C-alpha cells in the first residue's frame, strides 16, 4: 500500500492520543477571540479619504478604527438616505455573544468527552452557524443598501449602496472593501481545528482498534496454539 508507513513510525507522534482533545480544546477557546478582536471589516476608500474609513464588526458591537468612525460613516450615508447604523438597533449583537459562549461550552464538553463524533458534530454546527451569520450579515447589508429614505438629498434611480459580502465593489465615489478581520480568521481556524481534532482522533481510534484487533487475533492465535 502506497501510504502504508513502516510500523506507523512517522505518523505515530501525530497519533498521540491527546492531540484530538488538545485541538478540540483550542478550537473551543479560540472562539473567545471574537470578544477580543473585530471579526469583519468594511473599508471605504475615496480620494478625499486616502486612509479610508474602516468600520469594524465585532460579535457584540460595531466600531471602527476611531471612536468617530460610525458617526463619519453615518454622515456619508445620510446623503443618499441610508439608515443610520445604530448598534443598539441590531439584536444580533445582543444574542450572538450567548451563542458563542454556548459553543465554547459545547466545544469544551466535546473535548472533555474526547469523542470524535462530538468533534465532528461541533465542527459542522460551527460551519452552519458561520453560514447563518454570513447570510444574516448579507441581509443587513441588503437592508442598509436598499432601504433608502424617500427624502434623501441625493437620489440615484436604480442605485443600490449595498456593500459587498466579501471583496471589493465600487459604490458611487467609494471603493468598498469587505473582508474578515482578526477574530473572523481565528474563528475560521477554530473550525479547522475541530475538523483536525476529528481527523486525528479518528486516525488514532482506528490505529488503536487495529492494534487491539491484532492483539486480540494474536491472543487468539496463541490460545489456539
Amino acid at each position, binding site marked *: 500500500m502506497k501510504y502504508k508507513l513502516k510500523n506507523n513510525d512517522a505518523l505515530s507522534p501525530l497519533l498521540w492520543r491527546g492531540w484530538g482533545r488538545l485541538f478540540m480544546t483550542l478550537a473551543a477557546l479560540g472562539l473567545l477571540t471574537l470578544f477580543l478582536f473585530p471579526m469583519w471589516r468594511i473599508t471605504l476608500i475615496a480620494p478625499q479619504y486616502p486612509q479610508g474609513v474602516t468600520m469594524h464588526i465585532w460579535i457584540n458591537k460595531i466600531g471602527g478604527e*476611531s*471612536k*468617530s468612525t460610525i*458617526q*463619519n460613516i453615518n*454622515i456619508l450615508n*445620510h*446623503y443618499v438616505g441610508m439608515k443610520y447604523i445604530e448598534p443598539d438597533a441590531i439584536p444580533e449583537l445582543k444574542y450572538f455573544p450567548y451563542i458563542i459562549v454556548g459553543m465554547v461550552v459545547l466545544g469544551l464538553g466535546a473535548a472533555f468527552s474526547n469523542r470524535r463524533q462530538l468533534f465532528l458534530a461541533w465542527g459542522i454546527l460551527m460551519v452552519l452557524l458561520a453560514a447563518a451569520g454570513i447570510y444574516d450579515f448579507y441581509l443587513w447589508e441588503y437592508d442598509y443598501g436598499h432601504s433608502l429614505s424617500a427624502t434623501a*438629498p*441625493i437620489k440615484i434611480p436604480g442605485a443600490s449602496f449595498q456593500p459587498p459580502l466579501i471583496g471589493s465593489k465600487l459604490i458611487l465615489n467609494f471603493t468598498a472593501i469587505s473582508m474578515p478581520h482578526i477574530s473572523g480568521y481565528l474563528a475560521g481556524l477554530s473550525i479547522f481545528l475541530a475538523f483536525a481534532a476529528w481527523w486525528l482522533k479518528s486516525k488514532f481510534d482506528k490505529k488503536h482498534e487495529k492494534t487491539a484487533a491484532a492483539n486480540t487475533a494474536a491472543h487468539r492465535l496463541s490460545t489456539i496454539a
Partner: protein
Amino acid sequence: MKSHHGILPFICFLLAVTGLFFLTSCGNEGATNQGSQGALGNDAASQVYVAPGEYDEFYAFMSGGFSGQISVYGLPSGRQFKVIPVFSVDPEKGYGFNEETKPMLNTSHGFVPWDDAHHPELSQTKGETDGRWIFINGNNTPRIARIDLTTFETAEIIEIPNSGGNHSSPFTTENTEYVVAGTRFGVPYPQSDVAINSYAENFKGMLTYVKIGKEGEMDIAFQVLLPAFDYDLAHSGKGNSHGWTFFTTYNTEEKNSLLEVSASQNDKDFIAAVNWKKAEEYLAQGKFKEVPANYAHNVYNEKTHSATSTMMKTVKVLTPADCPGLVYFLPTPKSPHGVDVDPTGEYIIGNGKLSADLTVHSFTKMIAAIEAGSFETTIAGIPVLKFDEVVAGVVKDAGLGPLHTEFDANGNAYTSFFITSEVVKWRVGTWEVLDKAATFYSIGHLMIPGGDSKKPQGKYLVALNKITKDRYLPTGPELCHAAQLYDISGDKMKLLLDFPTIGEPHYAQGISADRITPNVKKFYAIEENEHPFKALGEKDTRVERQGNTVHIYMTSIRSHFAPDNIEGVKVGDKVYIHLTNLEQDWDVPHGLAVMGANTAELLVMPGQTETMLWEPTAEGVYPFYCTDFCSALHQEMQGYIRVSPQSSSIALKWSLGEEEPVQ
C-alpha cells in the same frame, strides 16, 4: 572712386560696431538673467520641486512682521500652509473676534488688536529644536506668545512690564528654561510723566526672563535693571556658555532724539552678557526687589476652548550693582545688531551693523577676563571688559552692514549684509571668507533650519529680504516682502527659489517635519470639551434668555445647524451664539456668519465650541449660514433668526426640520 573706397570701410565699421553692440547687450542680458534668477542650468527647479501629494522636508515658521502673525511654509517648495494668528485679530479665523479668543489680546492697555511680530524661536531640548512650541515677540506692546505645535494655535501670551519695544526676544535657552525679552526703548522706570529730555536721569532699560514650565506655561521669573541703552537682539549661550544670555545694545549714548545720528557716535557699543544661573542664585537669596507692575497673562485652554486673561501685579527686579557677577559688558564695534552664538557655544558674534567687519568674542576669553578682574570701567555697577581681552577674531571686509549670522553643521557661518545685499559664508575659527551670494534685495535676517541651535539641520538657507522691487509682478505701490532659498550643501551657495511672504518676515525658524508631524492634532475629542456653553449633541441644543441676554446653544454637523429656525430674539438683545461643531473627523470645520453682525465669522474646528456675540439693531429675519465649504450640502447649511421689536411678547422658539421644537 576715392570717396567710394572711403565710405565702404566706414559702413563696414558701422555694421561691425552695431553688431558688437547687439552682441554685448545680449550678453549682458544673459548675464543679468543668470545672476538674478539663479543657476537654472544646474536644475534648481527640481531641487525645489515637491511633487503633488508629496510633503516638504522642513517646516519654516516666518514672522509676519507688521501683520503680527506667524506664517508656516514648507521647504524646499516655499509653499505656504497656514497663517497662525498671534498678536493681531484675524477675521478669517474669528481670532480676536469670538468671545473665546478676545482675552488673548488683552493687555494692561486693554484690548490691543495688532502688534508687530519679529522673532519666532522654536523650543529646544539639549540645544536641539524639539518641535513642541514656537515663541514669538510682540514688539510694539511688549509681549511674548507661545504657539502650540500640536494645534498650530496660539496657546499663551504674556505681557512684558517695564519695557518699550520688545525687540531682543524671545531667544530660548538650550532646554527652554527661559525665553528672554529686552527692551528696545529706554522707558521711565517706573513709567511716569517726566520730561523726555530727562532721559539719562529717569529712563532705564529692562531685561526680562520668562520661565517656561513643563507644559510650556510662561511666568516672568525676574527682570534685570540696566542703563537705558537700546537692547537690540539676543541669543542664549549653549554648551559651555549655557547659563548666559547675550544682548546687543545700541544708543549707549543714551540719547532720545535724532538717534540715527546721536546714537551712532560711540565707536563701540556693548554686548551685555547676563549670567542667568547667577540670577537664580540671587533670587534664591532674596536679593531681588518685588516691585508693583501691571501686565496681562493670557492663556488659552484647549479643553474649554477659551482663553482667560489674568492681570499680574508684581515683578521681581534684580539690580546689577547689588548682584556682582550678574552682568558684564563686552565692547563691540558700531551698534551691533544681531548677536549669534556658534553651535559649540564658544563664539559670540557681534554683527556691527554700521561696520564692514564682524567682531567675534570668545566665551573662554570672556570668563578668563572676568576671573582676572581686568575691567576697562564700570557702568551702573556693571564691569566693562577690555575689548582686546575678549575678542577672538574679526571677519574682515566681508561686506557692509552685517546684521545676523546663522550656522551650518560643518563649522561654517553665514552672515547677512544689509547694505551690500548679500550673504557671506565664512569659516568659524579662521575667520576667512569662503563665499558670497547676492540677495534680491536688502536681506535682514537669514535662517538655516536649526541654525541658531547646537545642531544645525540645514542644507538650506533662507534669506529674508526687506525689498523686492522688480522681483515679482508689480502690485501697485505696496509690494510683497519675500524670502529666497539657497542650497548650502556644497562649497558655493546656490540660489534656488524666490517666494513672497506675508507682512515683513523678520526672523524665521526651520525644523525637519518629522519633529512635528507625529504630534499634530487632527481634531478635538468632543468628549473632552469643557466649554461652559457646549452642546454635545442635538438633544442639548436650546435657547435661553436671561434679561436681555440670549444664549443660543447651537450645533453643526454635515449639513445643518441645530436649531436652524430661532424666534423670540428682540432688538437690543445681546445674543451669544455658542456653536459646537459635532464633527469628529479631520478637516471638517464649520463656519458661521450672521447677516449684519458687527463681528467676524466663527470658524469652529471639530469638537470645538466658539461663541459669536451679535447685537441685532433692527427687527427682521436674519439669515445665517456655514462659511466653510463642508460637504455636498454645504450650500443648504443655513438658517434664520427672527428679530422682533423690544416691546414684543413673542416667546423663544427654536426648531430643526418639521417646524417642531427641538426639545
